[in-house]
């Protein structure tokens, strides 16, 4: 047991240690200060700007920024769809896989461009290497960079700067942050045993019966793996994601993966501190998130460590819940990974979340409902500060002034945007399709595990889509047959069609509406004349106020979903406790 906790503590320490380093570096990149890659990259960037015709010094307004994101993403989605739909004749297709069904293609394209990487397919049998590298590899960079750009534009607006230029931020995010780290990371992954090859599946004779052969899927995994984590994408090369020994062969790669997915969203809070020139506030906010994060880890880890009472009764003693887990990671690494991946909107999994104890289900769902326990690439930090704006608005009146955040007054426009963003989008994108599905569980859901757990499965799927997380509880009839199966005569199912289309709604709703709202919010904040700080102004960099923000997050953000959690994981926990499960 001690070993497990030690592993967790060590990982957390490493993450906290990285924060100021990466945070400062990102601030330098986005503030346009000199950094060590300038010599190589400045000419490269100039060529790119020249070729595309971007005026790098021109700042965009909120609307322009949002429109630029929409247009560029539409173009990119079209490209993804084109590549996947035509993978049959496109190169790098050693297994000769044909095109998946149209709805799978659409869902995959939208899922990857929204930085969600929700997968209603298995990489091994649905996609060619070409599709994996071109159709899915590049949006892993661009969607992560888009999120980062939005986060930075938001921070700029909040601190009274012009929002900047999307294309410049996009390019700088990729060339200065994502690509350099990915190159180094991929090399380490290769060294640690992750394959990187273009040859088709290896066909080997089984040990049991040399006459029987078996195909072992492989491919260009290592480079895919690092950006999957670093960009909080989470879409696995193989169906079982980071539980697969080729994606995540050892506890070392597992540590690297967790650090990879935590690095940017946690460091971005520090970057904010540099921008706002208030590191104290940044560390306080960081501390608040860290406290929630650690609390969630503890709840999950204890649940997994204690195991299932029903199973324990059969075993005649207490044993950790290892169902759906890789033994090489054990309960601690699996719990830590699960909390981190759902908290950061990565969605990669090294164990089956479906098999977690209800406490784990509770935590992973809550992570996605809150979206700020580090949160999505760039957007997580933006959400966090939007919550602070909301907390300032609710409680700031109590000091007898119109509420201000960083000297800027919170008025109707900001409240509309912030409350809409944080409070309303999620219920719409999760609860409405969830309720429709559960009204017709058999026709639409294809739920494998009826009851409280089934409810959690459905809500989890939509929460994962709306929060742009991408992980799944699975157990739903959400996959169309693979191209091979269709060629062999399988027919597409209605439940998969419903899942593909309805999650598309949640994906889009959970990505573009918040991004637009965030940018407009940042825009309107940046245009306000700052009011000087006096002793009558509510300070937002005190422990008290950060505590209040935590309370507001829990009451406004989490309590909304309390009835759903009560009917899902909480009810399931009581059921198991009673020994029915």
């Amino acid at each position, binding site marked *: 047991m001690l070993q497990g906790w030690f592993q967790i503590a060590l990982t957390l320490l490493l993450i906290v240690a990285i924060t100021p380093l990466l945070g400062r570096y990102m601030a330098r990149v986005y503030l346009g200060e000199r950094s060590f890659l300038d010599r190589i990259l400045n000419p490269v960037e100039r060529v790119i700007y020249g070729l595309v015709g971007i005026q790098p010094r021109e700042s965009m307004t909120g609307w322009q920024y949002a429109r630029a994101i929409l247009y560029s993403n539409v173009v990119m989605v079209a490209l993804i769809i084109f590549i996947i739909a035509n993978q049959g004749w496109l190169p790098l297709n050693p297994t000769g896989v044909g095109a998946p069904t149209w709805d799978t293609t659409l869902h995959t394209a939208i899922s990857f461009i929204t930085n969600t990487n929700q997968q209603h397919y298995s990489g091994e049998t649905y996609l060619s290497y070409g599709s994996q590298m071109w159709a899915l590899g590049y949006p892993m960079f661009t969607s992560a960079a888009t999120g980062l750009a939005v986060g930075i534009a938001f921070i700029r607006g909040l601190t009274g700067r012009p929002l900047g230029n999307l294309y410049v931020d996009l390019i700088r995010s990729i060339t200065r942050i994502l690509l350099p780290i990915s190159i180094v990371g991929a090399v380490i992954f290769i060294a640690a045993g992750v394959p990187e090859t273009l040859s088709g599946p290896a066909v080997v004779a089984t040990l049991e019966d040399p006459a029987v052969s078996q195909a072992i899927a492989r491919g260009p995994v290592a480079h895919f793996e690092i950006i999957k984590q670093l960009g909080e994408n989470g879409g696995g090369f193989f169906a079982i994601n980071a539980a697969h020994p080729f994606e995540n062969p050892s506890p070392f790669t597992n540590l690297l993966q967790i650090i990879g997915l935590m690095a940017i969203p946690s460091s971005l809070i520090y970057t904010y501190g540099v921008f706002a020139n208030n590191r104290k506030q940044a560390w306080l906010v960081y501390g608040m998130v860290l406290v929630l994060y650690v609390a969630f880890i503890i709840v999950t880890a204890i649940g997994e460590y204690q195991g299932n009472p029903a199973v324990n009764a059969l075993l005649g003693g207490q044993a950790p819940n290892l169902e759906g887990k890789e033994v090489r990671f054990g309960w601690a690494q699996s719990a830590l990974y699960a909390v981190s991946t759902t908290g950061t909107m990565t969605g990669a999994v090294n164990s089956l979340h479906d098999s977690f104890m209800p406490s784990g289900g509770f935590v992973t769902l809550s992570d996605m409902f809150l979206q700020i326990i580090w949160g999505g690439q760039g957007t997580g930090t933006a959400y966090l500060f939007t919550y602070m704006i909301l907390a300032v608005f609710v409680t700031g009146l109590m000091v007898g002034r119109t509420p201000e955040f960083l000297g800027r007054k919170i008025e*109707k426009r900001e409240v*509309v945007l912030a409350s*809409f963003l944080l409070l309303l989008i999620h219920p719409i994108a999760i609860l409405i399709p969830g309720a429709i599905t559960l*009204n*017709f569980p058999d026709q639409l859901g294809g739920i494998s595990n009826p009851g409280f757990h089934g409810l959690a499965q459905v809500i989890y799927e939509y929460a994962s889509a709306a929060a742009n997380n991408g992980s799944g509880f699975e157990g739903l009839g959400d996959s169309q047959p693979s191209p091979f199966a269709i060629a062999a005569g399988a027919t597409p199912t209605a439940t998969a069609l419903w899942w593909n289309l309805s999650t598309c709604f949640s994906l889009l709703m959970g990505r573009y509406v918040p991004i637009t709202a965030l940018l407009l919010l940042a825009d309107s904040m940046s245009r306000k004349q700052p009011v000087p700080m006096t002793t009558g102004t509510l300070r937002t960099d005190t422990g008290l106020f950060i505590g209040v923000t935590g309370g507001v997050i829990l009451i406004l953000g989490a309590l909304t979903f309390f009835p759903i959690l009560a009917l899902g994981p909480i009810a399931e926990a009581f059921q198991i406790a009673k020994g029915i499960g």
Partner: protein
Amino acid sequence: MKRITSQRQNALSSASATVLETTAEIVERWQQHKLPRYLFLGLCFNLVLAPAVFAATGGDLSKVQAYWLAGLGLVTVALSIYLFFVMFVPEKF
């Protein structure tokens, strides 16, 4: 006989004129009173919606219950639209 027919025709045409006039007047009055108009349209729409609800619940409900339940659903949607309206133009409230 012929006279009677023409009389009847007259009566008919005058009746239809009255109906038309009344309808025109009702329509005109409606335009003054938006709420009743929306309520009426809502009830009409509910007539379409109720069978769908009835079918979806698969016989758990009677037809009357389905009608009321569909109405409740409509009211909920209407309230939601109203709240969106308040959200974006709170000055009017």
